[in-house]
């Protein structure tokens, strides 16, 4: 059986029992990327040598009996809107083509501390604005289950990478569904943590009051393990909550007795595809069989949520994206009249339609 078909837990077991090395695991995933990603288009950047070097170092430390982190030797794919020192971070935009951050995002630092192997950077809708991975300036990502379909977005590259077994774990970000929707489209586990659970330091900002970083995995245990590694307080994000991080990976197999799951009746409204509804109802039955109490709840205002999102997200995007001025980093036009014109021409040239639309709407 190929290593890439295993769950995160199974991979960790093999690494712990020394039945596989990190180098073997990482090589298997790199080979899978080489064989598959031309069709799927999940990755914007893969540095094979750097990944293998990390794997070799972890193997050496494990063999020497040193302590290793909770994700030791496991490949993790990262959405291309998280800063990592010296690594291209494009946000799927011409604006940041060639940009290499001088610092690590908090989540990148946590992954490194956990001894994860950063295997590559995944495609997204430009600046995480979109829900299909078609708004990237560089490529469209396809759904591995059916290449004629979208993987969803904006974290579609991360979702597709896990679904196509090109990485056992991946990081995404979610502002208005950008982890949850592609996870659903690709049939993998994805979670938007509660706002403040994970530090946004080093995440390229879209709508700061909604942005949150979260995990993708092929099963719930893997997502729990990854969330446990990245969650927790960081003073560099003032909205990050200072609360203890539960041992998600230790409790994930416990029965759900005492857990109440609310089913929002407004979400089963007109326009819902019958197949989707059936799948959701079946999932609810699973929760019930695991001991959860399932209750119908009403959120009468939820019909207005998209309209409210249209106010909150573009307003914050307009403010956040004002930093792209062609001065400190990012694209600068070659031909312009004066300073103000340099700003306008640079931004007009390098932002895609969807980004322009949202900046305009929020200005």
């Amino acid at each position: 059986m190929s290593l890439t078909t295993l769950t995160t837990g199974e991979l960790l077991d093999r690494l712990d029992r020394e039945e596989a090395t990190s180098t073997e695991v990482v090589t298997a995933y790199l080979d899978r990327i080489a064989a598959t990603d031309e069709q799927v288009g999940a990755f914007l950047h893969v540095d094979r040598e750097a990944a293998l070097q990390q794997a070799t170092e972890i193997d050496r430390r494990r063999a020497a009996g040193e302590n290793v982190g909770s994700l030791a030797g496991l490949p993790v794919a990262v959405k291309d809107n998280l800063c990592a020192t010296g690594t291209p971070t494009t946000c799927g935009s011409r604006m940041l083509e060639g940009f290499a951050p001088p610092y690590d995002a908090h989540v990148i630092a946590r992954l490194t501390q956990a001894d994860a192997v950063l295997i590559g950077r995944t495609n997204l809708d430009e600046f995480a604005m979109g829900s299909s991975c078609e708004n990237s300036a560089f490529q469209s990502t396809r759904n591995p289950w059916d290449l004629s379909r979208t993987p969803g977005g904006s974290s579609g590259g991360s979702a597709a990478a896990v679904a196509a077994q090109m990485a056992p774990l991946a990081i995404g970000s979610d502002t208005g569904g950008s982890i949850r929707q592609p996870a659903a489209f690709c049939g993998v586990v994805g979670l938007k943590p509660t706002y403040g659970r994970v530090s946004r330091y080093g995440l390229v900002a879209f709508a700061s009051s909604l942005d949150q970083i979260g995990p993708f995995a092929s099963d719930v245990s893997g997502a729990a393990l990854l969330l446990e590694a990245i969650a927790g307080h960081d003073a560099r994000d003032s909205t990050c909550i200072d609360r203890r991080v539960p041992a998600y990976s230790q409790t994930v197999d416990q029965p759900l007795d005492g857990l109440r799951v609310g089913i929002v009746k407004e979400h089963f409204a007109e326009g819902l595809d019958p197949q989707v509804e059936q799948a959701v109802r079946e999932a609810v039955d699973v929760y019930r069989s695991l001991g959860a109490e399932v209750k119908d709840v009403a959120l009468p205002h939820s019909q207005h949520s998209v309209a409210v999102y249209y106010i909150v997200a573009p307003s914050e995007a307009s403010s956040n994206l004002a930093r792209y001025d062609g001065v400190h980093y990012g694209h600068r036009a070659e031909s312009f009249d004066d300073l103000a014109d340099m700003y306008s021409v640079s931004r007009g040239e390098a932002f895609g339609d969807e980004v322009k639309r949202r900046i305009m709407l929020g200005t």
Partner: protein
Amino acid sequence: MLAMLIGLPFTWIVAAFSNVNSPDWPSGFFLRRQSLSSIRSTASLKSCTLVLTPMSPLTTDDIRKVAALARLKVSDDEIGRLKQQLGEILQYVHRLDNVDTSGVEPMAHAVEVTNVFRADEPRESLPREQALANAPQTDGRYFLVPPILNDQ
């Protein structure tokens, strides 16, 4: 654009925000939405003291003004498209006018949070070389920009 919405009562925005579970926008959204009621601002965008009253759709001048404020160079083609697309979105957002939020407590966060302070002390910052490394133009010490004032 959203300056046009400033006349709306803030409380309902926050009340509805507490229930946000919205999807990122479907990419085809802008072309599918049909006009609801025709509403726009009566005041100029510059003043930012806007009151909503029913009026005609966005004009080309509105779009040019917002593009200038957003420092976005847009072509005439883009202006035509943006006028239609942004007009449709604004009309959709105006459905919030009909929400009754009297007596609803404002809410902005699922977890109780307080302001965060830190000591105002000097700390190490990014070395100059690294700060300049991604800049389009530098002289090795500073970011270079074109002349701010034209020679008179």
